């Protein structure tokens, strides 16, 4: 069966690079409802990203613009006319604020998630691989941070970092760092447990036996294998980052309206409007938030399902036409199929 001459079961028929990209390969793997979920998530997320990139072109006004050539904007104007989604009590254009808000949101996501991934992954690798007292201390700290309500930690961090209020960069960094502190334990935990599992794998032992150094084992053998679940946590955490950011803004620890547009701040301002029947100031920033979070979550969840062969839906095998001329590749796949069932 395995003399060197036989045709090899090419389990990975070298598809084009494009087809093997994370999201695209997931798209091709999916069927039915899972594909629908993935597509919906992709469309929403795509719209979010594109809006952020092209905000200067899309937004009719600046985020802190209160007047144009025709004079000051009216306050609390209903949607229509010059202001498609109306204006706020301060005279800001709601549509422009919502569109510019995507930029702030994406910056916070990128900075927060990147920082927490870097720190979390490094700490997780070292802690899991080296073990001992270092591991114990880091786990205790991570658990302690877990135990706090994440928003509370974020508030404390925001106050510590920027004194509560600040400029665009300061505000984003404050929000991002406070979110980072909350997220590091998550990445730390995931990477640490993966590292501990991988540490006992024969391929790590075989590297040890040939005399590989600890740093080499961590960077070459464990790192790549341990970080395979990260894209998933990334998408799920991105949505949580937006919510935390909005929560900070809502509570007044966010970014000043003059330095950037921020959905949470706008929601807070809209709070007083609701009772007087002014709905547009609150609904649109809220909707933007909901759609972004739903989009990211749908994408993350469906990628999660598609990564797991047990959860992944498949097209039904064609019954009846039991053509036994199956290709060798497929025949090899059956082993995995049978042993996993």
């Amino acid at each position: 069966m395995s003399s060197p001459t036989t045709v090899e079961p090419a389990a990975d028929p070298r598809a084009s690079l494009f087809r093997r990209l994370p999201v695209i390969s997931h798209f091709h793997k999916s069927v039915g409802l899972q594909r629908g979920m993935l597509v919906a998530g992709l469309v929403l997320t795509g719209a979010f990203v594109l809006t952020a990139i092209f905000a200067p072109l899309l937004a009719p006004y600046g985020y802190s613009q209160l007047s144009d050539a025709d004079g000051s904007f009216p306050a609390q104007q209903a949607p229509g006319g010059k202001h498609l989604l109306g204006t706020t009590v301060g005279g800001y254009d709601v549509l422009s604020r919502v569109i510019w808000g995507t930029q702030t949101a994406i910056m916070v996501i990128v900075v927060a998630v990147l920082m927490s991934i870097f720190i979390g992954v490094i700490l997780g690798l070292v802690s899991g691989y080296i073990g001992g007292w270092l591991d114990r201390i880091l786990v205790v700290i991570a658990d302690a941070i877990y135990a706090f309500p994440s928003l509370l930690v974020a508030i404390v961090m925001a106050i510590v970092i920027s004194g509560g209020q600040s400029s665009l960069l300061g505000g984003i960094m404050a929000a991002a760092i406070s979110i980072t502190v909350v997220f590091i334990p998550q990445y730390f935990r995931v990477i640490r447990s993966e590292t501990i599992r991988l540490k006992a794998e024969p391929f790590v032992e075989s590297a040890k036996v040939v005399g590989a150094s600890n740093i080499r084992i961590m960077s070459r053998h464990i790192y790549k294998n341990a970080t395979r679940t990260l894209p998933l946590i990334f998408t799920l955490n991105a949505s949580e980052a937006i919510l935390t950011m909005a929560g900070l803004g809502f509570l007044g620890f966010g970014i000043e309206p003059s330095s950037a547009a921020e959905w949470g701040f706008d929601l807070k301002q809209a709070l007083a409007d609701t009772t007087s029947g002014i709905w547009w100031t609150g609904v649109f920033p809220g909707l933007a938030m909901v759609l972004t979070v739903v989009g990211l979550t749908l994408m993350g969840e469906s990628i999660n399902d598609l990564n797991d062969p047990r959860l992944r839906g498949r097209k039904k095998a064609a019954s009846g036409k039991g053509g036994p001329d199956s290709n060798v590749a497929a025949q090899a796949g059956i082993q995995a199929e049978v042993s996993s069932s």
Partner: protein
Amino acid sequence: MTTNIDKRGAGPVLDIDHLKVTFATDAGDVYAVKDVSLEVNPGEVVAIVGESGSGKTVTAKTILGLLPETAISSGAVLINGNNVISVSPAKLRQIRGRDVAMVFQEPSTALNPVFTVGWQIAEGIRAHAHGKGGRVSAKEAKSRAVEALRKVGIPDAEKRVDYYPHQFSGGQKQRVVIAAALALNPGLIVADEPTTALDVTVQAEILQLLRDLRDKYGTSIVLITHNMGVVADLADRVVVMYQGDVVEEATAKVLFAEPKQEYTRKLLAAVPHLGRNSASQGMTARAHQDRKVLVEARGLTIEYPGRLGSPGFKAVDGVSFTLSEGEVFGLVGESGSGKTTIGRAIAGLNRTTGGSLKVLDYEMLNLKERTFKPLRKEIGFVFQDPAASFNPQLTIGDCVAEPLIIHSNPTPAQARKRVGELLESVQLPASYADRFPHELSGGQRQRASLARALILNPKLLIADEPTSALDVSVQAVVLELFKDIQEEFGFAALFISHDLAVVDILSHWVGVLYKGKLVEQGLGTQVMGAPQHDYTRRLIASLPVPDPDEQAKRREANRSLLAG
């Protein structure tokens, strides 16, 4: 097709007719079972043999309707006149347990650890009580569980019915699984590799039990296995499967004596046969004694620390042996005998706790990674599972080159060239260096693993069960290769295996480990031919040989030994 309505009549208990099973996978439809027809008569043991991927387990699962959702089956599987493929789920539940039951491969996972074995045996009895109008009282269920346990030879069944699975040994657990299968007295038992997870001495007991069941209760057995020795020991009729098709079907005697198909012949020829093809054939004294001693163990003890308060576990207890340059030392033992621990200690993966272990004149008792590292390039290690011992993210070339890169810092071109040479010498095309581990078959991966172990031209190679994860025909090829390469390169090797026949093929000198103690060592032919220690005798007697007549004689001759 026989439509046989009368229960337990003269007709077959199981009649599979043109069964086809197709799986939907990412790589498209896979035809796991292409066209299988077979019959099982009352009181008959039919073995389905084949290598991995032959469709034997899928066939077995179809008999109980246990296929996953992604599978589509056609054809007919008739059990007492019911077609398992087309009956309703409710009807299928009635058939399971009452007409057909299953014995699984791994007894420690087939039992639920949080329920007593009695409860688990009675589960089937309770599940089938509703059909007969009423419930089974707890007392009756228990008494029937006790009866089932007694049937499978568990001593003191009244008391042990209330035990939990962890209180039984591996072999006893498998007896409990069989007892659960027997609880409703089904006419047919499907046993999927029932002894593969067990040690060879325990395997002999379970095979004896299955034989008794057939003789006493007339139970038919469908035995799924890859082990030709087990087939020779138990089966009346053999169905050989290959890639989803039945290749050959014959009575056991006929099949082993004169296999008709080429594939069957190849398969049988690949099975290692104890006492044939021994590496120490014709030797009278231990070879290579004039050469340098590479590994020397004196009263080696390795203890795993116990939990708080309880004493540690001595995995290796006062073992002494030597291994000289160019020699192949075979270490045999059952699970838990400490053979792997010794191998790992020599490679510096485990710490020794007592006695002395000198590897290349380095005392392992005070192992310091920094001082031992230079010696590592003299030691190659081949792991048991070739699939797990390669980093899935690196190409075969990167994996094989790793020792070279760590110890000698070559240019990429040099490394590539050396990897190519090594791959060629283990009979793999050099182009395989660009493949990923999952793109190779098991045998090819194990050859690549050998290439990695040999790339620095080590003096010593430790092979820990290198062929036990492979199919028998692949195993034969890898063993042959190992032998050739050892002769070519001339390294010393510690060959660790649970399989006596495999060890005998390769090793000049054989040591038998039992519960951490080296009970016997000697030339392969001596240990296998005239074992001195009781345990070695039992071990050799338990090993089924792939020849029904010879096996029947051995079984008779060794009955007293095995009972003890």
